[in-house]
């Protein structure tokens, strides 16, 4: 038996919360989640029933922040990362858009990543499963913040205090671009800027002292490919200086070599260093607590926002 398509719509079903502006609708369609980056409200809603780890990805323009996150998405498309499998994502559309410039379909001659625009704080989301996780699922929220915002925060305590999400960071990734490290004229400035950013985040009281800080030597293929022992010893000295300055001020300070999209250098595969980072995020957290990603001024009067305020703010300090 066949019947023609069903007729005009009944009352529209309430759509799920969408992260960004919903597409224009006609009466016979129902909006679905946009798949775009999450704003603070959507990210807070995510916390409703699940354990979330917030990974703050910090660094100047061009350090590889977005590339680092999108490479995780790309790696999962080829298989599990270590023991961890992809479970879901509320921002698949956003990931795919960000990956476009690294795909053949873009017809570029070299891979690139769409730059994060200066403006509102946004989040990218990946849920993973793994053998050691409670209920085998864990939500990872990554900040997607422009390099300009971190440059402002580096230079101004008051600007830094605008980065409300820092207070909730489980892992703070401080990205240092090795393409600049191999340039003798720039390398001291690069390390100095990175230290100033971390200092500003701590001195402003925004980054909790319990936070795990990972200094990431991004684009490490530039150092590995240069085959110059001097670069490696520069990194060792910089590591010592970081330890001296900040080792006692944060929950843990560690250093990792990362090459998300390495050039053809021996021993550096696509996503070099990321499996170890993911393992760390999945298994190590400075605390168990609920999330409060909404700055006070963004707490609105809508019932859903009041609900979030009641249920998440009150618990946010039970660390």
């Amino acid at each position, binding site marked *: *038996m*066949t*019947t*023609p*398509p*069903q007729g005009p*719509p*009944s009352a*529209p*079903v*309430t759509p*799920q919360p969408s992260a960004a502006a*919903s*597409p224009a*609708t006609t009466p*016979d*369609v*129902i*909006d*679905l*989640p*946009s*798949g775009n980056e999450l704003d603070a409200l959507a990210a807070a809603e995510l916390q409703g029933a699940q354990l979330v780890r917030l990974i703050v990805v910090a660094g100047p323009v061009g350090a590889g922040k977005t590339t680092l996150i999108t490479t995780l998405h*790309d790696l*999962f*498309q*080829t*298989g*599990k990362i270590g023991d961890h*499998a*992809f*479970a*879901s*994502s509320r921002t*698949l*559309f956003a990931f*795919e*858009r960000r*990956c*476009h*410039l*690294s*795909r*053949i*379909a*873009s*017809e*570029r*001659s*070299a*891979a*690139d990543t769409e730059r994060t625009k200066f403006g509102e704080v946004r989040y990218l989301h990946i*849920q*993973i*499963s793994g053998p050691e996780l409670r209920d*085998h*699922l864990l939500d990872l929220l990554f900040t997607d913040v422009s390099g300009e915002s971190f440059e402002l925060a580096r230079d101004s305590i008051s600007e830094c205090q605008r980065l409300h999400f820092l207070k909730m960071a489980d892992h703070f990734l401080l990205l240092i671009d090795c393409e600049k490290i191999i340039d003798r004229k720039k390398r001291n400035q690069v390390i100095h800027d990175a230290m100033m950013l971390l200092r500003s985040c701590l001195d402003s009281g925004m980054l909790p002292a319990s936070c795990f800080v990972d200094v990431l030597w991004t684009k490490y293929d530039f150092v590995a490919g240069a085959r110059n022992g001097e670069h490696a010893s520069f990194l060792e000295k910089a590591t010592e200086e970081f330890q001296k300055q900040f080792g006692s001020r944060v929950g843990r300070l560690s250093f990792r070599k990362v090459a998300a*999209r390495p050039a053809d250098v021996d021993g550096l595969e*696509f996503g070099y260093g990321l499996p170890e980072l993911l393992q760390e995020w999945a298994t190590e957290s400075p605390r168990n607590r609920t999330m409060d990603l909404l700055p006070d001024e963004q707490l609105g009067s809508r019932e859903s926002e009041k609900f979030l305020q009641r249920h998440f703010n009150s618990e946010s300090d039970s660390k």
Partner: protein
Amino acid sequence: MTESVSNQFVMIGLPATGKTSFLAALWYLVQHGEVEHRLTLERMDGDSKHLNQISNLWAGCEVVPRTSTSGERTVSMVLNDTSTKKTITLTFPDLSGESFMSQWVDRHFTTSYNEFLKESFGGVLFISPLNYQKPARIPSASLLKEIGETGKPNDERDGEGSIPWDPTQAPTQVQLVELLQFIAGREYFKPPFRLALVISAWDQLKGEKVSPQKWLSDEMPFLSQFLESNRRLFDFNVYGVSAQGGDYNKDVDELTGMSASERILIEGDGVKNSHDLTELLTWLMR
């Protein structure tokens, strides 16, 4: 009195993944006794014109036209389970692949799909192994040399020499994960949702000697991980199905030399009769 049950299932799939061919082969199979099959047609009910048209084409080894968005409809079959003697009414929406692509691109359901989904016990997700998009990264390919003269004209490029992002070009496995997330995200969703994954045109992969499950985990690891991680949401089984039985251009002599039902091939965990497409349906209704 014979027990009677009704089951609604959604058929999910991007364009040209074999949904209509599956329906055509199924409608033919349940009416004929050429091969053993568990579910048989009990009686005609209502308008069968569409099913008759597509199954006639299928029986004659002719290409079954793909469903267009304007030709979408719901099809029903009143079947008898020869094992339990129950009468089963199966209902499927025959939706176009473009409708599902539109869910990914335009981010909406039609209300009719939403209403149908609300009442569905499970679904069949169709994947073509001959026509799917992989996440091809620039470093893993020989760059523009391969694109060569097939590249788009310069006036379609943005200021930095790139073709703008087109969401329809996103990897198939990502699109399919999103379609399943849309289902799982509805407020009426009741897990576990039974999901039969059909790798269509399975005859074309005979030489590769892989199981359907292995094909899925090798070729669509993102989708495979999603399903494995969400077994509490989706109770799934993977089938390799050939509704046509071969290539209508190359294998027509061989295909017309056998009974039409013998052309049907199904492979997967628990399949006992490799021609019985209804085993997939009985798994969904178990």
